[in-house]
């Protein structure tokens, strides 16, 4: 069962019902392209981790159609080409970092010679070479994440699935991990990222999906999803004379406390703002700054998880028979 050659992950109708009443996933439709960094977002209990665990055969789906690397979801041999770092992972405390890589590498069917080579490479990549022969029990949270990432890459996977990879990692470590992800993308690998850190995702993800109560609420590139919110903010010195914006239908202005005025003009291209700049110059106004703006991923996320009728965040947890309930992990 080969899927579309461009899709590393092609999910249809993924449902998971826990104990017959907690609907963790309610028919997920999602495609992840080959060679992209894909971000999965959602509030607690949205079903993110359940979806990842279904892909990694840790949780059995109630229904699933679709493929991963061209094979049906749940096909164990496919996992030879997949690397996975779970959230809150726990590695054997009695092993050293190097032994952990060897152990999980061997479980992923990586031959000894290749393991020896990959071990040194990856420990160096994640900056853990000096700690390679120390026991895992002596590692900090950040170090565990680094070694966890390295073990996920031992089998030189085509697809890397990372659940909260930067959890507990300091800013330097986060940057290092981001660099690794970008390098993987450059090598043509696909990265599936599940994270709460929206700013992190925004920096690296090509496309994102936002899960809310077991359903895909938003799906696409960040540019596509924020297209409607794209605008230019022009700041001028002093007040804006009346009637200047008359020919700019959607433009609006606002006086700022520091004696300047901000003019906001919806638009996606630089050419969209040129007529406004020409008009302001004709009026001999001093242009302080011109900035292209768009909605941040956080804004997008908040919009997705807000109930438009009540203005409050949608209930935490997977929905149970249409109502929200705690119970499923996310």
């Amino acid at each position: 069962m080969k899927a579309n050659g461009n899709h590393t992950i092609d999910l249809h109708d993924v449902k998971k019902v826990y104990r017959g009443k907690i609907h963790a996933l309610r028919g997920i439709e999602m495609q992840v392209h080959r060679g992209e960094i894909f971000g999965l977002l959602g509030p607690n209990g949205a079903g993110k981790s359940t979806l990842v665990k279904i892909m990694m055969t840790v949780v059995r789906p109630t229904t699933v159609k679709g493929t991963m690397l061209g094979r049906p979801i749940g096909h164990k041999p496919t996992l030879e080409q997949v690397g996975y770092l779970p959230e809150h992972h726990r590695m054997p405390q009695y092993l050293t970092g190097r032994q952990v890589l060897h152990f999980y590498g061997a479980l992923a069917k990586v031959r000894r010679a290749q393991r020896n080579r990959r071990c040194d490479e990856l420990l160096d990549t994640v900056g853990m070479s000096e700690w390679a022969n120390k026991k895992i029990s002596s590692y900090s949270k950040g170090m565990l994440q680094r070694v966890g990432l390295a073990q996920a890459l031992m089998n030189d996977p085509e697809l890397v699935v990372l659940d909260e990879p930067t959890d507990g990692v300091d800013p330097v470590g986060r940057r290092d991990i981001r660099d690794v992800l970008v390098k993987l993308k450059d090598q043509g690998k696909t990265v599936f990222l599940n994270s709460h850190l929206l700013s992190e995702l925004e920096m690296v993800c090509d496309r994102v999906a936002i899960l809310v109560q077991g359903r895909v609420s938003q799906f696409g590139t960040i540019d596509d999803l924020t297209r409607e919110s794209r605008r230019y903010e022009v700041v001028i010195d002093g007040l804006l004379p009346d009637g200047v914006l008359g020919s700019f239908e959607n433009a609006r202005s606002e006086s700022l406390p520091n004696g300047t005025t901000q003019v906001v003009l919806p638009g996606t291209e630089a050419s969209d703002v040129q007529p406004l700049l020409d008009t302001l110059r004709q009026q001999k106004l001093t242009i302080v700054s011109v900035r292209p703006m768009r909605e941040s991923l956080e804004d997008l996320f908040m919009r997705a998880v807000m109930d438009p009728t009540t203005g409050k965040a949608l209930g935490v947890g997977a929905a149970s028979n249409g109502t929200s309930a705690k119970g499923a992990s996310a």
Partner: protein
Amino acid sequence: MTQTAAIFLDAYRELNARKLFWITMILSGLVVAAFALIGINEQGLRVIVWDVPFPLTTELMSETTFYKTMFVSFGIGFWLTWIAAVLALVSTASIIPDFISGGAIDMTLSKPIGRMRLFLTKYLTGLLFVGLQVTVFCVASFLVIGFRGGAWEPGLFLAVPVVVLFFSYLFCVCVLLGLLTRSTIASLMLTLLFWFLIFALHTTEGTLLMVKFTQQQQLENQVSSLKHDREILAAMHEGDSSQENIARHETRIAEREQDIQRAETVKGRLDTAHRITMVVKTALPKTSETVNLLERWLVDAADLEPHDEMDDEFAAYEADPMETAAQQLTDEIRDRSVWWIIGTSMLFQVFVLGLASWIFIRRDF
């Protein structure tokens, strides 16, 4: 193969990291060292270099037989199947709860290895603990018996598979309970309780058997006496005995017939109780009988005197006139087939492991 080797290597490292593994290993070494330090001579016991007067001398038993008997009676019968087995359970009870704990199981299940294979391999790694312990103990005992007793008995190594088999009966239960409760303490306590229950069942069955044989003996004696009384009565009728004597004798016969009837009723009940016990016992693992098999085999393989646990348990019975019943009991237990002992125990194990595997395969983690 790479995966299986990795799991076993990891299990060895895990054992290696456990203090209890090394404590048990050191204690095993001390037990064997104690064997080596004790010997017998013509005056009695010899402890290191000191002679201690003791009834057991080389006139009664050769030094070789002394060491072999020590190995079977104390080393296997007491140390490996009781103390070391409890320590092994304590050490291995956490294997499954740790394995399925959140964060750890995800890392393993996401690898290209089937759940059934993963689970059964993990189960086998638990047996590795006991396998290593018993092997080290047997090698040390083999050397002690060889050097001190002057006899090199490879038959002693039969203890390795037998003790591992015995432990596997308990460990499969521990694994199932660990999977269900996810708790090391709960699975350990419940396994020890299970062990106690099958030991109690074994003792109950032995006691019932002993009482049944005793009752059988008494019944046979009463039937024999009745026959004798009837012959006397017939002679009395033919002779010139008074009617009063005949009447008294007839009353005695009638009483004896009632006693026999009562004894048959009791025997019938005992038979039923024993049959029920045996049915329950057949369905459960037979730990004591499995270890006793080792003694049975070592009698042939290593030329040892049998030491039967039941002999000890019913020593009091042997001392009284019901020696025949005690002998019948010993023979009955010894005559039980290996296939009944191991086969039914293995069936139990297959059932428990099958159930545990099924749960493991279907569970969401």
